[in-house]
């Protein structure tokens, strides 16, 4: 089959690879009908996530039709012919983490738990197409994909919603939603969101759905801010505006009650010298991640507020504003999304028309053009916000 593979930093290529097969009895094989390129795929492309290998199949946002199930799959839950969305973290549903809703911290699904444990202190769940640190599972930017422990993970779509309406339940919609959910939004809360990429847009939508009085988008890409403005969110372009003072102005001097970092480790900074400082430290591996958005979110948040981090971090950061965080009683919440916790309630919200995930799609490409999709997404060309690939 054809699959989009990681070749080396800054290079992916669609090549022929063997078809996936059942490796565990509760596996299913899915004929992929739609798959997407995620912002976190760019971290892999750019070489910021260690333990990628030449030939790794990319992709953790996929859906399709079940064409084969293993002998151990519960027939009441999943059968050949079912249409399913595949959550990016692989849960087992049986360990203490999964049973407490912490699916992305599953204790059983990462065969490379040892590497993860060395980097993070404790292991994390397996993730499709997301380095060997998270298990070495082939991704879904391919014609076919293996779904592990399919009966507890795959989300069956039984309504006639289109692929594009439900595809993002695999990752970015629940991820954005979890960013807002961790904010414990109450009446009158002002929520600021760093990053107006697809996850940031969904965090804004979710904040509004959860009752935020005002939502503010912060980015430096004009077309992304326009997309947010189109949903009547306030916008701040940090390349020509001072973020902190503008946030104070927009909140009567209080600062946003809740701040969401939907940027992560490859942030850019409005001030060239600060950007250069972190870029240089990153290049010499004195820090692995550039945490501008996180620093600014902490400094901007009102005292006693919540800073919710859904942007991806991989290693270590420098100049963490611990003093601001500690002295002003801030709460820092974070996590890779526990997709399985959110996907069913979010499917209902889509069915009821409360959320429209299709609004972020700007490009639909055949799988063969995946490298081009990565290119325009990375370089913010052609007003690219979200690329959906059709195998």
């Amino acid at each position, binding site marked *: 089959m054809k699959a989009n593979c990681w070749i080396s930093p800054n290079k992916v290529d669609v090549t022929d690879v063997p078809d996936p097969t059942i490796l565990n009895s509760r596996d299913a094989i899915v004929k992929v009908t739609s798959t997407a390129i995620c912002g976190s795929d760019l971290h892999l492309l750019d070489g910021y996530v260690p333990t990628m290998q030449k030939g790794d199949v990319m992709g953790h946002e996929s859906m399709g039709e079940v064409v084969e199930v293993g002998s151990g799959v519960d027939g009441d839950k999943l059968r050949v012919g079912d249409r399913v969305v595949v959550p990016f973290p692989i849960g087992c549903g049986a360990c203490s983490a999964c049973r407490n809703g912490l699916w992305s911290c599953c204790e059983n699904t990462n*065969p490379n738990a*040892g590497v993860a444990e060395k980097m993070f202190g404790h292991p994390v769940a397996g993730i499709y197409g997301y380095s060997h640190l998270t*298990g070495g599972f082939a991704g879904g930017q391919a014609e076919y994909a293996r779904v592990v422990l399919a009966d507890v993970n795959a989300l069956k779509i039984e309504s006639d919603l289109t692929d594009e309406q439900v595809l993002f339940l695999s990752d970015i919609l629940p991820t954005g939603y979890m960013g807002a959910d961790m904010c414990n939004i109450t009446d009158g809360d002002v929520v600021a969101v760093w990053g107006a990429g697809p996850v940031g847009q969904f965090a804004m939508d979710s904040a509004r759905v959860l009752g935020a009085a005002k939502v503010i988008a912060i980015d430096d890409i004009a077309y992304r801010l326009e997309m947010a403005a189109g949903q009547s969110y306030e916008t701040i372009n940090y390349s020509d505006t001072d973020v902190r003072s503008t946030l104070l102005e927009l909140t009567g001097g209080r600062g946003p009650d809740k701040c969401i970092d939907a940027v992560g480790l490859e942030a850019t900074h409005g001030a060239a010298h600060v950007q250069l400082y972190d870029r240089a430290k990153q290049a010499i591996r004195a820090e692995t991640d550039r945490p501008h958005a996180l620093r600014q979110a902490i400094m901007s948040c009102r005292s006693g507020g919540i800073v919710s981090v859904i942007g991806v971090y991989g290693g270590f950061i420098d100049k963490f504003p611990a003093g601001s965080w500690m002295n002003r009683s801030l709460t820092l919440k974070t996590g890779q999304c526990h997709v399985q916790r959110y996907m069913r309630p979010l499917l209902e919200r889509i069915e009821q028309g409360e959320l429209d995930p299709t609004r972020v799609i700007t490009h639909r490409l055949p799988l063969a053009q995946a490298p081009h999709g990565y290119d325009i997404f990375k370089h913010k060309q052609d007003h690219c916000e979200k690329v959906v690939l059709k195998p």
Partner: protein
Amino acid sequence: MTTDGLHGERPTASLRHDPLTRGLGWASAALGAPQIIRPGAVARVLGVDDAPRHRLASAVVGAREMVAAAGLLGRPRPVWLWARVGGDAMDLTLLGRALKHHDGRGQRRTEFATVATALITLTDLYAALTRTRRSTPMELTSTTTVSGSPNEVYEFWSRLEQLPTFMAHLEEVRVTGAGRSHWRAAAPFGRDVEWDAETIQDIPGQRLAWRSADGADIPNAGEVRFVPAPGGRGTEVHVRLAYDLPGGALGKAVAKYFGEEPTQQLDDDLRRFKQVFEVGEVIRSDGAPKGKQAREEFPQHPARPLSADERKEAAA
């Protein structure tokens, strides 16, 4: 821990009554004494001239020999045999220098001494190698918490025949009688080891302990304790293993280099045990088709579906 007697049962050759060790001890004394008392005469026998520095070297070598003799005859331990091997290397070096700078007078005697020393070196090396106990006692511990009551986890573990499904190095466990079983395991570098084990304690829901019977390739003992985690959060499984690692410290270092480190193996086994208990089987990925294996976590097979041949290899 009930590994008492594991090491005591092993026959340890007493060097005190070992003819070769004692012989080498007396040889040290016989060679050392004249070198101290008559260094000049010894120098002449060796075919080197009676210069002050040769006398000094002879006296130093003599003193060394006397120390080795005292060690081997008084408190015999393999380290004294290794000390002799080290001394031999020193002597060969000195004789080599003597040959290189020889003025020709008595050269045959020097050559004869060199050959004799080389033969002694071989004897010493043989004695040192064969008299050194080439295994290292190891004690390993590891622990994990699984979702289930202590009774359920105990029941699962007591079905010995299924241990190989999560203990990667076990090839077969066969119950051979009440409290007795036969075990076969893959050892580092493609070898197989087998042993009979006897259960020495079996408290349902709490503890299992066993010990290898006489004649085991690698004498071993172990225990598993099943402890309820606080607040009903499952069962803590605490494993302790004790065994003699063949090959001594060198063997351990080499095994570790090749990722056969015993602690890693036990850690892998317990993670797979948790998977089999909680999920029903060992989780496999394209990168890790055999499941959790510390020595093959990175780099590994790319995260790309395996070909038919690769699957066959992984299943083997």
